[in-house]
């Protein structure tokens, strides 16, 4: 799986309450959730995010609630990949289960700047910053995770009989 996009950059401990505030959890409609994504952290996110964009962030991205609405909102916003120094564990699981690509890479998360164009090949564990030419190595996705994400989520992967 390869992803190419422009980077939107955030800091440490981006929590699920800012990714999708609980006041919008009275729906599970993907588009509606996306329309409030990052609202309490960055009110410009929804208007500037483009299909394929990549989020980079610091430590403990997605901490807080178990709401699957958080990775759903990010994915439905058009974001193709989240690169962080680390992820909160429930968010990590949820993102894979719904087919949002995520990867831990502290060096890339540190050095990549807002607006850079980045290309990531997660099957081979390579992240390349096209803007600066720097390259970073990550642990490649295990095959079952690759299959889940390629199929669009755990349920699709089960339904398609690939895992």
């Amino acid at each position, binding site marked *: 799986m390869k992803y190419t996009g422009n980077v939107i950059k955030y800091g440490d401990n981006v929590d699920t*309450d800012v990714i999708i505030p609980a006041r919008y959890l009275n729906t*599970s409609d993907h588009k509606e959730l996306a329309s409030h994504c990052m609202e309490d952290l960055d009110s410009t996110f929804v208007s500037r995010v483009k299909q394929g964009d990549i989020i980079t962030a610091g430590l403990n991205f997605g901490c807080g*609630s178990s709401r699957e609405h958080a990775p759903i909102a990010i994915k439905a916003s058009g974001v193709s990949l989240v690169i962080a120094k680390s992820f909160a564990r*429930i968010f990590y699981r949820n993102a894979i*289960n719904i087919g949002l690509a995520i990867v831990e890479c502290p060096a890339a998360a540190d050095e990549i700047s807002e607006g850079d164009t980045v290309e990531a090949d997660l099957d081979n564990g390579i992240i390349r910053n096209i803007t600066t030419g720097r390259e970073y190595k990550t642990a490649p996705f295990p095959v079952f995770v690759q299959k889940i994400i390629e199929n669009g989520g755990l349920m699709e992967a089960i339904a398609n009989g690939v895992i």
Partner: protein
Amino acid sequence: MAMTMTQKILAAHSGRESVSAGELILADLDLVLGNDITSPVAIKEFRRLGRDSVFDRDRVTMVMDHFVPNKDIKAAEQCKMCRDFCTEQNVTHFYDVGEMGIEHALIPEKGLVTAGNAVIGADSHTCTYGALGAFSTGVGSTDMACGMATGKAWFKVPSAVKFDLTGKLRRYVSGKDVILHIIGKIGVDGALYRSMEFTGSGLASLSMADRFCMANMAIEAGAKNGIFEVDETALGYMRGHGCAEPTVYKANDDAEYDEVINIDLSVIEPTVAFPHLPENARTFAGIGEVRIDQVVIGSCTNGRLEDLIAAAEIMKGRKAAKNVRVIVIPATQKVYLDAMEMGLLRTFIEFGAVVSTPTCGPCLGGYMGILAAGERAVATTNRNFVGRMGHPESEVYLASPATAAASAVTGRLTSPWEVAEL
């Protein structure tokens, strides 16, 4: 092979003699839980699996607690979806208005978890049941759907941090102060992906309410689960609540822990987490004057009877400070009834508080106590992220019931030690 408490439970639930940190396992589940926010997403996913029925109607439970009694039309529709599903599936433990309580107070109270169980819940605070010596962890809705269909979930076996507790808590200091102190020490990712295992001679002085509160907030340190060594207090609770026969797992003496942290309970002071992270823990020395607008006493963290007793003790015979709105939310119908019979509701109302039906409402900024821009609340809840209780420019200070009550008396962030001396 030497194992932690958590590893022993996971081994027993995956048909293995032993497991070690980092292994991926498929575990049998004793209980799969959801609420009115997460279950609708899980039900949609469950339908896509094409299964006719849940794996065991006695071991799937849904609790309508976040936005009920329904806060708006959309919330009503989400609850209706859960209600219809549980009726169709003949789910035994479906808790709706009238029987419901905040899930993590209700599930133990109903005796649905026992020591040695493996539990997943589509709510991050599912880690609460570790107080009973169970492995219990929060997951998302897709995992809940798979759990409902198969009674199984995959896990990466966690390594662990051991907390060796000694000493005894001082007056007006509770489990909430201890866990805020611990999160302040290790940070909001201090136990990321790992278990927090609580043991030691200090356990004896902790009530079950203290332990539920501490296990509840393990997630605020990033932990996969929090778990307490089972002692006579825990066994007594399980006997008193009709829990299934407990299976008690003790860690081996030579079990491998990433870290052992010693906590002397006798030196813990009333502790508050300042905005906007639970790790911003501070004691009262030199905090200055922090004026407040609202106090919330309740939630899955601190809405149990012991919590209401602690608050009422401070409030009795006193009045809420002018311009401070005080909201008390018993966590379950039983807590509500017990509080009524003990006269606590009278104390709250005469103090100037409102007493609500059980709901998660204000804790997550849903309803029943939303903050305006610039307002500050002292809350016995578990998170103080930006916008957690309302406007992104509002602030939440996390504290114990005694500290919240003391702050309601003075109108500023106040130690219960100060008010008790007045």
